[in-house]
């Protein structure tokens, strides 16, 4: 009896142990599984999954993991244990995507895109694809190719409440063109007892987006890139000018109080509840605002111009991109699904149901007017993934934190510039002497 019991226990242990080795993508016959973080698109994705099954008989399964930080932790952990799903997204910089490619987790879809005269590739806005492309001689030594399929694009711009503009005596059809006009309009709104401007700068990357836009306008792309390379210091007068604009913003009293630690969701609530005159937010906000306040009357304008020396730009490029797991036995099926997902009818459905900018050409005529304004920004957009070099994370963090310190009056623009430059020097020294 005891021997029998021991045998059963031993067998169950062995089977438990072997079953642990089976990866998520291990069964070639199962449905194509997609991990995503886009909670606002969950229903639309499920509807599309149903349509795909109805059309092809093949099952796809969308799994939502939110918020995005938790999602990326899951993706990273699964990458380490080779248990990634068939399709997933990597949220982060080119460096992060390069790590996944280097580890063999992401399929190069360029051969598929170039098939049949590049039918699939030609669907997309070039800017949407560029963010997913690694060109020959890239600094990560990744084999050239396209490693992600963009399902939408995004631009980050200024948004203004037309009703509040009217109440402040500002023509709602003439949003500010220049930085000075922006400050003046903000002060007029503040006189109503309403914050002139709000943005979720507790989410540091939003500060970075605005600062980058201003830097490109003030000094031009070449000088920004030279700074990233380490040949122009952050203490350069042009960079100090960028910092001084945030100083001006802080001192002008047009900012919503507490903006430096406010998460973007709170900033979106303030703007949609008509408790702020202007906001700095991405094209996804159209969907967010329509959910929070469907009657909100607002317009969009690009980052105000500081100088005429260089073109003004807006931050924009691929929004959400999906990658195919190169180790999945269903990789081919995953590619087929992504081809279908980025075809006209599906993109049109996503645009109308989720109010995001499409990644493919030819469906923009179906988007609301305010979203079309966001789409216009793509023409003058810049995006780190399209630059030959990007700044390192520790410097970006110090840069964003320094701007927070300027806004709360803790640092002068010059002190902030020196602080960021010291972080840059540390990074350059590390790069020169790797241990």
């Amino acid at each position, binding site marked *: 009896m005891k*021997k029998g019991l021991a045998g059963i226990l031993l067998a169950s242990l062995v089977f438990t142990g072997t079953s642990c080795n089976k990866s998520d993508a291990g069964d070639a016959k199962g449905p194509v599984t997609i991990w995503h973080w886009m909670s606002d698109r969950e229903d639309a994705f499920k509807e599309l999954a149903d349509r795909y099954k109805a059309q092809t008989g093949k099952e796809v399964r969308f799994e939502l993991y939110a918020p995005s930080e938790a999602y990326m932790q899951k993706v990273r952990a699964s990458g380490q244990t080779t248990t990634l799903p068939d399709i997933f997204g990597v949220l982060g910089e080119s460096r992060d995507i390069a790590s996944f490619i280097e580890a063999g987790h992401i399929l190069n879809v360029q051969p598929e895109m170039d098939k049949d005269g590049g039918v699939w590739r030609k669907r997309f806005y070039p800017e949407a694809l560029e963010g997913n492309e690694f060109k020959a001689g890239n600094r990560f030594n990744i084999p050239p190719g396209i490693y992600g399929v963009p399902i939408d694009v995004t631009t980050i711009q200024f948004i203004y409440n037309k009703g509040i503009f009217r109440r402040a005596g500002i023509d709602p059809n003439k949003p500010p063109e220049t930085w000075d006009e922006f400050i003046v309009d903000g002060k007029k709104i503040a006189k109503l007892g309403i914050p002139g401007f709000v943005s979720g700068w507790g989410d540091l990357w939003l500060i970075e987006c605005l600062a980058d836009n201003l830097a490109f306008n003030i000094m031009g792309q070449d000088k920004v890139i030279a700074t990233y390379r380490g040949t122009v210091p952050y203490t350069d007068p042009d960079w100090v000018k960028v910092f001084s604009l945030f100083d001006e913003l802080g001192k002008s009293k047009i900012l919503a109080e507490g903006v430096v*630690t406010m998460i973007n969701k709170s900033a979106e609530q303030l703007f949609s509840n008509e408790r702020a005159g202007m906001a700095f937010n991405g094209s996804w906000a159209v969907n967010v605002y329509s959910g929070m306040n469907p009657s909100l009357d607002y317009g969009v304008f690009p980052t105000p111009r500081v100088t005429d020396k260089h073109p003004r730009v807006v931050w924009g490029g691929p929004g959400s991109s999906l990658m195919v797991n190169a180790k999945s036995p269903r990789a081919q099926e995953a590619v087929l699904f992504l081809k279908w997902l980025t075809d006209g009818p599906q993109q049109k459905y996503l645009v109308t149901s989720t109010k995001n900018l499409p990644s493919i050409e030819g469906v923009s005529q179906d988007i609301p007017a305010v979203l079309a304004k966001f789409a216009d920004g793509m023409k003058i957009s810049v995006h780190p993934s399209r630059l030959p070099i990007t700044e390192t994370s520790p410097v970006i963090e110090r840069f964003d934190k320094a701007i927070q310190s300027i806004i709360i009056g803790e640092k002068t623009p010059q002190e902030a510039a020196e602080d960021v430059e010291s972080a840059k020097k540390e990074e350059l020294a590390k790069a020169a002497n790797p241990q």
Partner: protein
Amino acid sequence: MSAELPPSTPLPIPKSFWDNFTSGLFVMPAVAMFFTFSLYPFFNVFYLSALEWDGISTLRRFVHFSNYIEIFHDKIWWLSMGNAAYVTLLALTLQNALALALAWLVDRDIKGGQVYRSIFFLPPILSGIVVGLIWNWIYMGNYGLLNYFLKAIGLDALARAWLADPDTALTSMAVVHMWKGFGWGFIILLAGLQGIPRELYESARVDGAGELHIFWKITVPLMIPVFILVSVLTILGTMQIYDLVVATTGGGPGYHTEVPMTRIIAKMLGSARFGYACSMGVVFGAILLTLSLLQIQISKRSRVD
């Protein structure tokens, strides 16, 4: 004298072996899980801390103790330790004093004791993110509840963006943490108080002792083991604060509310320095262990005294 077995017969396996073997097999799943989810990660983190690795790539560079040396020069890391220590100090004193006071009151069989017990234990069971978001609206600058109240009673000068002002951000966050955490201490301290035999109190009262005297001479000495437990849990729980920081300040403004956990996550995910983040984890773990042992030693000594 036992009879000799024929040479071809195998030795019988004693019954005790099967007993032990079966018992061992029953324990095996738990042991396997302990090895997989506790021991392996524990030792692996030491190995990973000696690497320069982004957490995904196959490229790993062994850097010996470089990450540890870097930590000692990382001013922001030590600033975050200081911030966490400040919040911990407040939690150890104010939070636990409040918890003890409330536990002492509820222990005195006041009316509605059960209701209070439930109310006081409500904040700890709420999600840190939810609590953070609720307090965001209380602390908000332009439209916050706290500022509205201050203005209503004529204290306009005190109104501010509590979480964005460098003078108040960390303390404001600490208040939220204490509000959320005092219920744990309350429950444990209440259990401790209820374990003290009532006869001791009655005898003391018969002997003419006052309430304060009873508290210092009976309650406090008998509660020392409970105080140790609550203190250690407070230190460990508060030093590892994370979700509230993310939901309220994100570590800002500047670095004013950064804590060790936000730095570890920033290095692991933001900077993709997995090895460095692991070494931060090792150093942090060692500090927490030392603090806990120190706390136990000090408390033991005071008990002996």
